[in-house]
């Protein structure tokens, strides 16, 4: 086909092809749902019916999309890429909530969708007050949603579906992967996706094994490993990791949260012996640097303000909490509620900027913090010396001015989304502190509620309309704003 006729075709969005690909993805999701069904059956819980039925429905819809929709053309461009990526997350949550609607601990549609979206976006908000009451199947499914969403649904499908291994898949990769630039580590997009998933699977398996060696049961280890490496923060106990009260558990989870917050391509390069890549990476250095300096601040504050009741109070717990907030996991250390306002205040910038791009963590990413800092330094320098020619250099390479512009635009949009979200939720009838804190927590995918900080009362005070807004915010935050906001631009739909 020649380029001219391709351009004529591109004027309309290739909906049939989109639906067909979504059909494929639903088949995958339905397949995943069978796992909790089997687990439930093994624990002889009645929930296996809920999972079995949801899985059958998902598989059925996926199959019929695939079977009965025959697109005239298979090409997918930029617009299809954005739309598909955003849609997939919504569709996955819509089908992922099915088990919650019919399982033993039943939820209504609002809460089920909210829970599913909190899972897939690895935010980790939860409707369930006590996960102890949930069946094994439900707990596993919550963990699995986070795990699938952690590295990205699209990235997973790129790795397994060869039909997306062309430029349409490229657009989806760009729409989903986080960060300023999207580094590929191998020539084809499917290979890149496979390598990243290999790293992810390896980390999860290692985390499970190490947790299992400690006091945790295998089931809890698997669920916590999935919540940790994906930096989601769902847990199987009401108290979270504190239930085990074991320093070992905290240390293992801290280590894997740290890895989950690191750039996965760097972990991949380290795994093939190219350690210098990680050593020379500015973001990685900043990541470690911020953790270390925050650690010092926390030790000083805790020693002066809170008091020390044991060596963990100034070592394991603050470290666990700092890494947990930075990587947007949102687990809580047992002594956190004692720390008070200074800690809550310090957590805001930590969660806002999050960890490294290309990781499973949320937030605006340290990469952008570095660009912002260098850009601001240049601006101030220029105020003094207007003729000074300045550039923003990252890893020894000069960033194109458009890239810097895009970063600054991103940060402004990010703040705007948080603010708008907070106002909306307040207007919909929730207390203001809760509204703003949960909007912030949703966009950054942190998933800590205000009650954990001792300044509000958490999800229970958010109205059901507010919960839909939160679900939208979580998605916007996970897809790094542009992918979602671009759909609301009229130019996207008609040209």
């Amino acid at each position: 086909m020649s380029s001219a006729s391709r351009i004529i075709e591109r004027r309309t969005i290739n909906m049939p092809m989109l639906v067909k690909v979504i059909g494929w993805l639903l088949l995958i999701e339905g397949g995943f749902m069978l796992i909790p069904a089997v687990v439930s059956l093994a624990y002889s819980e009645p929930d296996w019916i809920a999972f079995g039925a949801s899985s059958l429905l998902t598989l059925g819809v996926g199959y019929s999309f695939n079977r009965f929709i025959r697109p005239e053309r298979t090409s997918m461009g930029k617009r299809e890429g954005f739309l598909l990526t955003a849609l997939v997350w919504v569709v996955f949550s819509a089908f992922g909530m099915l088990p919650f609607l019919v399982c033993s601990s039943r939820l209504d549609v609002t809460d089920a969708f909210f829970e599913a979206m909190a899972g897939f976006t690895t935010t980790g908000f939860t409707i369930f007050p006590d996960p102890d009451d949930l069946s094994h199947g439900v707990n596993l499914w919550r963990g699995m949603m986070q795990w699938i969403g952690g590295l990205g649904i699209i990235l997973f499908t790129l790795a397994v579906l060869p039909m997306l291994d062309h430029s349409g898949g490229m657009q989806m990769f760009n729409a989903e992967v986080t960060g300023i630039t999207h580094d590929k580590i191998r020539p084809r997009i499917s290979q890149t996706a496979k390598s990243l998933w290999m790293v992810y699977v390896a980390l999860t398996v290692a985390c499970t094994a190490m947790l299992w060696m400690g006091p945790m049961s295998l089931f809890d280890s698997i669920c916590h490993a999935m919540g940790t490496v994906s930096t989601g923060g769902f847990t199987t106990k009401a108290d979270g990791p504190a239930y085990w009260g074991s320093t070992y558990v905290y240390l293992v989870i801290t280590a894997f949260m740290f890895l989950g917050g690191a750039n996965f391509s760097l972990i991949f390069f380290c795994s093939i012996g190219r350690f210098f890549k990680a050593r020379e990476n500015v973001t990685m250095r900043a990541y470690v640097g911020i953790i270390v300096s925050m650690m010092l601040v926390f030790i000083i504050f805790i020693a002066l303000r809170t008091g020390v009741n044991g060596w963990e109070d100034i070592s394991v717990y603050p470290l666990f909490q700092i890494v947990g907030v930075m990587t947007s996991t949102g687990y809580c250390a047992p002594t956190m509620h004692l720390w008070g306002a200074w800690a809550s205040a310090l957590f805001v910038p930590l969660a806002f900027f999050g960890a490294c791009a290309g990781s499973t963590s949320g937030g605006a990413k340290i990469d952008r913090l570095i660009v912002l800092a260098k850009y601001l330094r240049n601006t101030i320098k220029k105020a003094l010396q207007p003729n000074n020619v300045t550039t923003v250099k990252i890893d020894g390479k000069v960033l194109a001015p458009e890239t810097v512009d895009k970063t600054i635009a991103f940060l402004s949009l990010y703040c705007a989304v948080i603010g708008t979200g907070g106002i909306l939720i307040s207007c919909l009838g929730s207390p203001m502190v809760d509204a703003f804190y949960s909007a912030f927590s949703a966009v950054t995918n942190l998933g800590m509620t205000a009650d954990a900080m001792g300044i509000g009362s958490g999800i229970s005070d958010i109205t059901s309309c507010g919960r839909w807004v939160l679900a939208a915010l979580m998605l916007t935050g996970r897809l790094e704003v542009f992918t979602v906001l671009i759909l609301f631009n009229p130019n996207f739909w008609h040209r």
Partner: protein
Amino acid sequence: MRIVIAGAGEVGSHLAKLLSNEEQDIVIIDSDHGRLQILDSKYNLLTVAGHPASFRALRDADAAHSDLFIAVMPSEANNIVACAIAKQMGAKCTVARIENYDYMAPANIDNVRSLGVDHLIYPEYLAAQQIVTALRRTWVRQWFEILNGEIMVIGVRIGEQAKMCGMQLKDFAFRHRHFHVSAIKRGHETLIPRGDDHMEANDILYITTTRDHVDDLLSITGKIEHHIRRVLIMGGSKIAIRVVDMAGGDFKFTIVDKNRGVCDMLAQKCPDADEIYCGDARDMDMLSDIGIEHYDAFIALSDSSETNILACLTAKEIGMKKTVAEVEDIQLINQAERLNIGTVVNKKLLASSRIFQLLLDSDSSTSKCLALTDAEVAEMEVKPGSRITRALVKDLNLSHDLTLAGLIRDGKGMLVTGMTQIMPGDHVVVFCLSGAIHKVEKLFN
């Protein structure tokens, strides 16, 4: 296959795009960040920033583990250096683009090999070959000979007066058993026709036939063969010099160029050219001064594709029997073909023909390949045990975007029908649409 392309210029970008659509692993190196960013955002490939002939960039691109290393920077010296480094690092096969016949001369080829350059692409040379063929066969658009002409693939545009116009393909095949219509180019589209497709006026048909029946094609398509003697070339480019060098004895060439310096250079470099004029070949006064009515063919080789197309149209109006235009913008090729420009030359397509040949058959030079704007013709040697030999052609369930046109067995050419059984050792001519060449490779290897 892992392919590293050094240089993201016109040819490099085109190859990267094409090969990435063929599901190959592509790494492209260039020092220009902007160019790489455009490629990176559009195509499924990896980009490496750095000078393509530097050790650092080649290491970053992991040239050591490449199956094919293609150096297509503007400077041939850089290309050869890059190939030499890549080869030393461990690249399996290296290709350098050159712009000088010196490296290709049989006496020097071993020296070039020992430098680490396995194959050479010389687009200007290939273009000159195509132009000379076009001058010898004025009635065809494309002329592709396989194994000394045992099988030929001929691209010809049919007018309204052609007998086959409006005929269904199966009727045509029934009446003319010695011709296989392998592909039809209609407007913007190239299609691999099936039995119930019609042939329409202004289609370009790609017909496969054997040596003995080529001449019958003239009457079937309603074409007349002209004898060319005097040729006017617009633009004293490298291709022009090669054309004159290649066929200066058979034709009388007149070169017209606007630039005085170029004309002086031509006078020294092109002893075989009949006459050289300094001026604008689109200027009517200039043309009548030259005596345009005595010329048979017009070749437009200036830097601008648009100028070339328009100049050819003017030449057609004056009454030239054959026009050839160099059209470097791929988008414009379809337009040019619809405007009835005799033959269109494109260096990028010629270069990719050569690369596809290496892709299909990296170890030997037995296979030939021809890249059209959105389809490829390849000659493949059948290896024992390959999938293609397992059943009769009609039972192979071949994909719809490729067709088997003809084959050569024991040095004798024949056409392929549904009842043909492909044997190991045959040379088969395959047509496939762009993006399907990897399917061909799987069938034959």
